[in-house]
Each structure stands twice: as C-alpha cells, then as structure tokens.
C-alpha cells in the first residue's frame, strides 16, 4: 500500500515536472507560417500596402509605436515604456525605449518616429497609413504640401516624443498596425530598402523569393530579454487552401488558415481536431442597402429584409458554423459589444407586414452586387434569394471581382451589395463609419446620415469615463440595429490549424494570422527543430 502511494506521488511529480517542462519555451528551431491571401506579397515596403497578407511577415520584421495585446484585448505601447496623457487628452508624451535597435545595429530615437510619420504623410505617395497618422495635429498640412514637418510631433530628447492629436482618441488604435511601422530615418528612403528592409522587429530579413516565401532570422539585439525564441521564421505564400491542407497534414507547415469546408473536415478528424484555433475576428459581414434606391430609403423595408432572411440556417448549412451570428454592427470581441442584444429573428410574416406598411405589399426588385467569396459572396446571395422571394422581393444578381466590388461600395454605384468590413478593434472608429461626417468612400458605404446617431457618437467621443463611453457606444450600436442600414449577417470566425509543436499562438481578433512572432516557439517534436 505504502509502495503504491509512493508510486502515485512520484508519478504525479513526474507528470507535473513534465508539464512544467512542456510549458517552458524552447530556444531555437524554425517557425513555418503561411500567408494564405494570394500568390505573392505586395511589397517589402510595408508602408505601401494595406493587405493582411503583407502584415504577416511585417509582424516579425517591424515594430510600431503600439502593438495589439490579444490577451488584454487592446493595443499596448510597444516602443514606449511610458505614455503620459495631458492637454485634455490631446497630448501624449512617449518615453521611448532606449534599447530598441534597428537591424543595421543603430539605436532607435524619436527622430526615427518623426521621420517615419512625415514619410507616411507624403501626399504625393498616398501611403495607406496616412489615414491613421492624420490624427496628429499638422499631419494633414504635410499631406497637402502646406508644411514640411508634422507640427504635432515634437522631439523633447532622443527618447522622449510629444504627440498632439486633433481628437481625443486612444492613439493605440491608430498606431498598432504595420502600416505605421517605424523605419530607420533616411535608410527607408533608399532604393535598397525595398530589396532589403530594415526594421525593429524580433526577426531580421534574410531572403524574399517573390511568389514563394520570405525568410527571416532571429535579431539578437531585440529589446525583449530572451526573445524571440525561434532561430528562424519562414513565411510561405500558399493561396490555395487544398495545397495548404496537404502541406499541413504532411507536417511541412506549422499554421494553415481553414475555410468552411476544411473546418468541417478538421473537426471530424480526431488527429486534426486538436490543432484548431478559432477566434471571433473584428469583421462584420453584411448586405449594404443604398438609401438612394427608393425602397431602401424606408427603415421598415430594411428591417423587413433582416426578418426575411434565416441567417442562422445559412451560417449553419453554408458557412459551416465558421461564423458568429451578427446582432448589430459591433462584433463579439468589441469592448462595447452588448451581450444582452438579440439578433433579428427569422420571421417572414413580420417581414411581409413591414413591407405592406412601407407600401410594398407585392414586394419589389433590386440588384445585388456580389463577389464570388465563399463566405460572404455569391453562395450566400444564392441562398438568400429564395428567402426574399418568399416575401415578394426579387433579386437580380450582379457578379463582380473583389477588386471591382471594393470600388463599387466606395462610389455608391449599387442598389445593394454584400461585403465584409472591419468593425473593430476600436468601437468608436468602427461606429464612426456611420457618422454623417464620414464620407462614403471612407467607410460610410451606405451613406448613413442620422443626426440622432451622430449626437450619441459625439457624446461617446467626448466621454472621459470609460464606462460611460462604453454605454454610449452600446446605445449607438443598438440605434444601428433599429435603423438596419444593412442586413446583419455574421461576424467572422477566423480558424487556423496549428501544429501541436508550435506554442504561443495568440488569438488575435484583428487578424488571426498576425502573430507577435517573438512569443512563438517550437518544441523538439517539430520536424524543423
């Protein structure tokens, strides 16, 4: 009996020791990630591209003033040790890290940040990050060529930077993506930079084989002690889901983004089920309705459409549950998401009643512009058509390429369209897309104008108390639910298969493939150890 007890205790101790060891990050090895959104990277100058594909490698190579903390669910300072807010919330003083080195060995200073933001505001280049930097006072003047330097940026000393904003917002939401990555001053302007980029990230550039891969290796002078863990990161471009599937099963890659069909297959396979990582991303899928098209000018018609579509059925049968039902605009992972809200129920009778009240008892016909996207394109439209037909609404489908759809929604050249739009992480910025002051080409694609909504949102923007701000944002979100400028379809559930030997994956709701690579490590069961 005594021997049995000793054996059990010893066994438990061994198991605990084993588990502790398993959780201790291992140094070395290669992380093999995949870039699934196309056949190439756009550019090695990350300031020029806003594609999610490019930020996958940029997260390893570059650093911005802030980074997204997936555990906290918010942006946190990355290149600053301390941020002091003054001037009624408009002035942010950054105490910068004095241990951040570029990959050419030079220490980062405030000059690099000022140089980078001035570069992004070069109006002749139209860098996509300009829409974020524009929040700094004087940035717009540089963009228009009226000033040479952003007046709202002031170097106090090499490691202290003062930033004056035009609005009382959290700059973290503006400066955490790779679009505002900090470049080494002057180096970034050289022609050679585009061939051999230099950043502040945990891995430095080694090689780019266009259309195939980017290889990066550990930067030993990275400022986080002991990090990164891995020796190397390889990001392979794999746009074909079926090819990724074979490579993942063959243990040639460590991560693979899954589509609806693969999601079902992986869930059903006992060997692969455990590899699935999923997160509610900050993207809302919806059908936008143009108020300039007479029937859609009536709120009751827009609500009728929400009642007429069995969204749950489509999500379950067609999207294979790789999405969460949308209640209103703000997604599940938004800090202002209201859990008590219920989505529009499937109620064709109510839809018919609303249509009659709006003066369309026999329904009407509209043109629906769509891409071929499997999760928010033609297959969804095809499933919705008979549901709308049931309440008398006929649909004429207009199919276009994704690039064309982007232009259609910006120009307002549609009666209705189906789309996936970023609806976070900043709830205020997401809801601002419906503010009257936001032009249609920016993100107010439905040209939504409602003074009552504007008032709520303006109040939220001015609120100092975060609880009050959240409450007002929830009110604005509920307002949108009532106004129904769109058919609220779903929030994307991002799904990625991760090999069991890769650890430290962060459930990043802004984009699951965007990983802070310094947190990742591979254990010794990895074939690329």
């Amino acid at each position, binding site marked *: 009996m005594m021997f049995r007890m000793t054996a059990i205790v010893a066994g438990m101790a061994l198991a605990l020791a084993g588990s502790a060891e398993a959780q201790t990050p291992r140094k070395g090895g290669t992380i093999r990630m995949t870039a699934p959104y196309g056949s190439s990277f756009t550019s090695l100058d990350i300031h*020029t*591209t806003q594609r999610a594909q490019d930020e996958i490698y940029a997260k390893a190579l570059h650093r911005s003033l802030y980074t997204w903390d997936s555990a906290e669910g918010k942006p946190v300072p990355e290149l600053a040790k301390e941020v002091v807010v003054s001037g009624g919330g408009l002035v942010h003083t950054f105490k910068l890290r004095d241990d951040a080195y570029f990959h050419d060995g030079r220490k980062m200073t405030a000059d690099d940040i000022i140089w980078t933001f001035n570069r992004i505001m070069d109006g002749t280049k139209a860098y*996509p990050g300009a829409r974020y930097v524009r929040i700094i006072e004087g940035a717009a003047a540089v*963009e228009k060529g009226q000033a040479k330097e952003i007046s709202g940026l002031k170097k106090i000393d090499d490691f202290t930077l003062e930033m004056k904003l035009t609005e009382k917002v959290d700059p973290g939401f503006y400066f955490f993506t790779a679009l505002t990555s900090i470049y080494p001053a002057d180096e970034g302007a050289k022609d050679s930079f*585009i061939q051999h980029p230099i950043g502040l990230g945990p891995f430095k550039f080694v090689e780019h084989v*266009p259309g195939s891969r980017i290889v990066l290796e550990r930067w030993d002078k990275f400022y986080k002690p002991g990090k990164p863990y891995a020796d190397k990161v390889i990001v392979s471009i794999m746009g074909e889901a079926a090819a990724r599937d074979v490579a993942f099963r063959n243990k*040639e890659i460590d991560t693979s983004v899954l589509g609806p069909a693969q999601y079902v297959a992986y869930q059903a396979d006992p060997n692969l089920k455990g590899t699935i990582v999923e997160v509610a991303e900050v993207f809302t899928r919806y059908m936008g309705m143009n108020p300039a098209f007479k029937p859609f000018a009536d709120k009751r018609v827009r609500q009728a459409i929400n009642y007429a579509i069995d969204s749950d059925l489509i999500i379950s049968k067609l999207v294979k549950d790789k999405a969460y039902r949308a209640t209103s605009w703000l997604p599940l992972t938004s800090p202002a998401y209201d859990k008590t809200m219920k989505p529009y129920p499937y109620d064709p009778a109510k839809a018919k009643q609303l249509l009659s009240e709006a003066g369309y008892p026999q329904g009407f016909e509209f043109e629906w512009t769509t891409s071929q996207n499997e999760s928010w394109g033609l297959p969804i439209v095809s499933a919705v058509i008979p549901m709308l037909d049931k309440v008398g609404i006929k649909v004429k489908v207009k199919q276009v390429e994704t690039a064309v759809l*982007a232009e259609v929604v910006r120009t307002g050249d549609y009666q209705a369209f189906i789309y996936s739009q970023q609806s976070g992480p900043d709830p205020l910025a997401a809801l601002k897309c419906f503010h009257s002051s936001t032009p249609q*080409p*920016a993100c107010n694609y439905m040209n939504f104008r409602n003074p009552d909504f504007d008032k709520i949102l303006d109040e939220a923007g001015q609120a100092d108390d975060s609880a009050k701000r959240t409450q007002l944002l929830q009110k604005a979100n509920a307002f949108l639910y009532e106004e129904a400028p769109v058919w609220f379809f779903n929030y994307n559930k991002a799904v990625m298969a991760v090999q069991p030997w890769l650890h430290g994956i962060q459930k990043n709701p802004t984009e699951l493939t965007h990983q802070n690579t310094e947190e990742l490590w591979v254990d010794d069961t990895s074939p690329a150890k």
Partner: protein
Amino acid sequence: MEAVEGRKKVPMLSFLIRRLLQTIPTVLAVVLLVFVLFSVVPGSIVSSMSDDADPQVELRLKKQLGLDDPVHVRFGAYIAKLATGDFGTSFRTREPVTAMLAKRAWPTLQLIFAAMAFSVVLGVPLGFIAALRPGGLVDSAAMIVAVTGLSIAKFWLGLVIMYVFALKLGWLPSFGYGDGGLKYLLLPALTLGVSPMALFARTTRAAVLEIMTADFVRTARSKGMSETRVVKWHVMRNALVIILTTVGLQFGGLMGQAVVVEKLFSWPGIGSLLVDSVLQRDIPAVQGSILVVVLAFLAINLLVDLLYGVIDPRIRYA
C-alpha cells in the same frame, strides 16, 4: 564549299531578320489589346491601395501613377518607354517591372523546360511504340494514358500528385521552391507535363502512322532496306517536323498553364505574378508579364522554324 555554306547562310539570315521584324506588329497588337482591356474593365489599383477618406488622396495617387491621363496618352508613353527596354514601374511594389520579371523568369523557365523534357521523353516514344503496333495492347494502353492525360484538370492532378508523392509516399516536398533544386521541381513539372505528354503521344502516333504508309517509305522497303533503318531514317526524321511544330506550340500553351501550377505549388514564376497583378489591376506588371510570355512564345516558334531546315534540308527559309 565555303561559297555553298555562305549561300545557305544568306537566306537563313534574311529569314531571321524578316521573322524578327514580323514580331513587332504582333507585340504591338498584344500590348494594345491588354492596354485597352485594362482601360475598359472595371476596378482600379487605387481601390486596393488605399481606402482613404480623402478624395484628394485618390486624385494624387492617380496622378502619381499616371492614371489621370487619357488612354492614348498613357499608351503612347508606355510604348515610348518600351522602345528603350523599360517595362515601367509596378503600381503595387513600386519596383521596376523588368527587375520583377527577372526574378521570376528563371523559375518559370525551369518549370516549363522540365515539364517539356518530361513530356517529350515520355510522350514521343510512347506515340512511336503505339504506332509501330497499331491496335495492339501497347497502342490501346498508350492511347488510354494519352486521352486521360489530356482530360485531367491540372489543379486536380496537382493535388493528387501532391497527395501521393508527398503525403502518402513522403518522397518529395508538396510545395515551395526551396533551393530551386530537382526535389522541389519534380512535382510541379510532372503536373504541368502530363497534358503535353499525352498530346505528344497522340501527335507522334498519328504522324508515324501516316508516314509509314507514304510512298517514299514503301519505296525504301521495296529496295530491301531493313525496318529499323526505314523507321530511323525515313519515318522518325519526317515525324520530327510535325513533333517539333507541336513542341513549339506547346511552349506557349505551357506558359499559360503554368499559372495554375505555380499558384498551387507556391512556385515563384511569372504565372503567379500575373495572377496577382491582374487581380490588383497592376497594369505595368500585367503588361510586362504578358509581353514576356508572348516574346518567349515567338522566340521558341522562331527557333522551331529554324530547326525545320536542319532536320529536313528540303525545307527552305522562304
């Protein structure tokens, strides 16, 4: 003797010059066609580069990319640059298109030559063997292989090949370029080469069968020439002209088909560059990629025309 050689070289040289001059209108027509097509199809690079609120930004971007000029002005400027060997600058990467193409050309050539080698080495002998015993077991089997090879979709075939050779047998990597070595080249080349292999088998079989019944072959046999010599000196030589024509045409076809294979296997060639450039309306990159494909096609076919004269001296460079 030297005078005779010189006389042979003169028509060949003038033929070459004439053919090179003929490529100019072809190239211009292709460039014009692509230019006009991309001017009328909806969608613009500006939409994918910036979803900015400020319409001024969009205007500036258009101006910077030269998209605010009328089509004929843009076309004229492009042709003027092209004449100096400048393919323009990519809208997306802001790199010179020639530099982008230079990086992609070798992998594409590797893939196409490997696929072509595989298809010729297997397809031509298969067609020969089939034709020598028409209606026999080998002939039937060869033709089943040929028809199947021609019918299979490349995407599906590539996945099956990946599944078998990478996942099940573990012999080769399923994707990627690696160090550009044979290990990485085999599966994409096999995928790309199956269809032309089948075509070569069928073409060779048909050509050999036709030549075998030709008068000059009958005459050779009646003179007592052995069957091996008949096949070697008369049948093979004459069939080669037809095979060579098919090879030349297939080169162009393979460059087009490589798009699917490159994308599937993450092979860094011109095909995958073309796909992304079309989707993002990167007109200079599209123009450059198509131009390279067209030029390669014309060059290969010119080479084939020149080889005709070597294989069969009766063919003149007219």
